[in-house]
């Protein structure tokens, strides 16, 4: 376990990714981004010899192809120790059973509160 933990942000809206990067700029972890679920899964699958392990995935819900809950459920199945947070614009469209299956650490809705988001990321990562 070398440097800082790595957080993977997944959203099809690059403006959202850009704003998140901005907000988390001074946080004690590295940030990577992916524009969709497929790319995110590809990144997570990379071995530690190629790229640092992902400690947390924060994903949007509504995305082309696989949605955020499907992604986080898949992450849970593949590498259960990766923490998962959902960041959604419209929570009530998500079936509760699906939400439960993803075993999420936290759920935040857009627009998000920077301080709260930072707090739950730190909690998820177990850092100060």
């Amino acid at each position, binding site marked *: 376990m070398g440097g800082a933990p790595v957080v993977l942000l997944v959203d099809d809206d690059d*403006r*959202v990714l850009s*704003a998140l990067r901005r*907000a988390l700029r001074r946080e004690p972890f590295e940030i990577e981004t992916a524009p969709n679920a497929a790319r995110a899964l590809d990144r997570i699958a990379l071995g530690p010899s190629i790229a640092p392990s992902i400690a947390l995935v924060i994903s949007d819900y*509504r*995305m082309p192809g696989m949605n955020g809950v499907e992604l986080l459920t898949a992450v849970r199945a593949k590498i259960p120790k990766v923490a998962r947070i959902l960041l959604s*614009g*419209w929570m009530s469209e998500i079936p509760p059973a699906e939400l439960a299956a993803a075993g999420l650490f936290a759920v935040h809705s857009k*627009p998000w509160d920077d301080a709260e988001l930072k707090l739950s990321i730190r909690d998820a990562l177990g850092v100060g």
Partner: protein
Amino acid sequence: MSVETTAGLARLGDPVELLRAQTAEEVREIVADPSIDLVLFDRLDTEEAALMLAAIPGDGPPSIVVIDGDSEADALDAFRAGASDCVHFGSEYENVLPVVLLEQVQRWRSERQRQVSEDRIRWLEDLYAAIVAEMPAGLIVIDADGLIVTENAEFGRLFPSRSADAGEAGEFLAARLPAELVEAIQRAERSASEGESHCLELVRVDDPGAPARTYEIRHRRLADSGRGLLVISDITESEWLSERLEVLRRDTRDIIENINSALIVVDLGGRITFANPAAELILGGAGGDLGGRQIGDWFAPPGAETSPIEECLVSGKRSRGAEALLRKGDGQWIPVGVSCSPRIDATGRSRGVVAVFQDLSEIKELELQVRQTEKMASIGQLAAGVAHEVNNPMGFIHANLHQMSEYLSDLEKYFDATQRLQQAAIEGDLEVIRAAAEDVGAVAREIDLDFVRADFEKALLESGEGAERIRHIVRDLRDFSRPDLPARVPSDVNQAIDSTANIVYTMMKHSVEFEKNYAELPKIDAYPMQLKQVFMNLLVNAYQAIEARGDAEPGVIRIETEEVGSEIVVRISDTGVGIAEQDQPRIFEPFFTTKPVGAGTGLGLSTSFKIVERHGGRIVVESEVGRGTIFEIWLPISSPRAEDSHSESDRAQD
């Protein structure tokens, strides 16, 4: 004929008409005439006379043979051949002939008279027997003691004899008839005077164990004896019928008086001859002052054609549910639905029109509300998309604002440091200047000045773009939910479908790809907002049909427009689940939906259908389960003028 015979006939006094016959055949022809009184054979030879006599039938007129000389043998031959009498041609012939003639003619005439009378009597007897036997009423003659003297078959059927020797006369009334009838007949016997027919009150007979029956009794005292003739009819059925008729009449009146629909009867001249209370309420003529007024007085909106009632008067054809404007008694114009039926009498001639109409104000109002509700509902189906598409930019704008205020306080720190450097430069102390300059550098490093400077601008630009995205969404939604313009306007159908498709695409881009192929189209007179509503309904349906497949691959919605002859066609096809064949005939019915509860109102397609119909167009659907659906909206390029007035009335409700 001899001079003597002529002289003899002359002595008869009355003029005699003579017909001559030369052969047996001529005799047969002449005696066929029933007015021939006598045949005279004037001195023929025996054989010829016999032939001619044989030509007279047995019941024919009498015949007299004139024999030349006084031969008794000849006379005998004549009698043998069938002659009624013989006269010898000799002295006294002229005197004897008329006597014999008169005797024969008188006998023949009285015989013939008797025959005719007998025939007549026999015919009357037959007629009487037939009437008595066939009349659909029981007929009896009773004597003064109440003994049945004679009865017809119908009486036997109505009141079968209870004694063993049935059918034999001689039973008493009381033995055959129910007590109520016997009493009624006895009352009649007492009060009836001779020869007068007396109709009794109807007699009701309650026989335990059988339905009650009603009889009508006619009584006539016969002239000769103390006998009475009774005619008894079972009128239970006809009484029931007339009661039933009365009930029907009353029911019909009740219905007409109490139905909510207005009902009027108009004569051929267009004058009101009847109005039920509902009609009086609308037409405002309680108190009967409607009678005789012209129906056209109520149906004459400025610039409109004749009313459906007047059309029916002219055409003689039924019409149903035609919409028209009617001016109520209080002067207010209201939309009404009118159904007309011509009144045709038994000879097939028209006598006027029966019209039923209803106030459609409330229905029209509801229709408008439903239309607006449906419009809102189709937006409601987009709620998730709207929320997502608004909350995404809101999310990053909000975060960026927060970040920019941090950048600002960072920059303020740097600004303070540069101000201190500026102050030091003015004061001119080199040490202080150096320290201040180092401090500026330290602050710049601390706040990561180059990054902040570049990212501040980037954050600002990105936030501005986010705000623009929200503005677009809100504008699209506002455009879509705005009430329509007050009249048809030249509308660009391509623009209407494209802007609607953009809203749908914004909300649903993640699972749907759009392919658009617009032809150059002329503008058409239309209500653009209503057309957009149709396109929205069809596009949302297409999207939901694609969603229902549950495929990872995005589905495709293809939009094409085309000008075909005098029409424009908008074709919207999707690669969704398709419509089951058994559902296809029902998809335009109001409230028909295959969507889960809450996902659709079941009004989308029925509303779309109505809107397109209002534009004089039509919707065609073609679908295959598993492959997708194609909707085609056909709209006429030149709008039908008749539809305009209809839409005007629609709008009066807005």
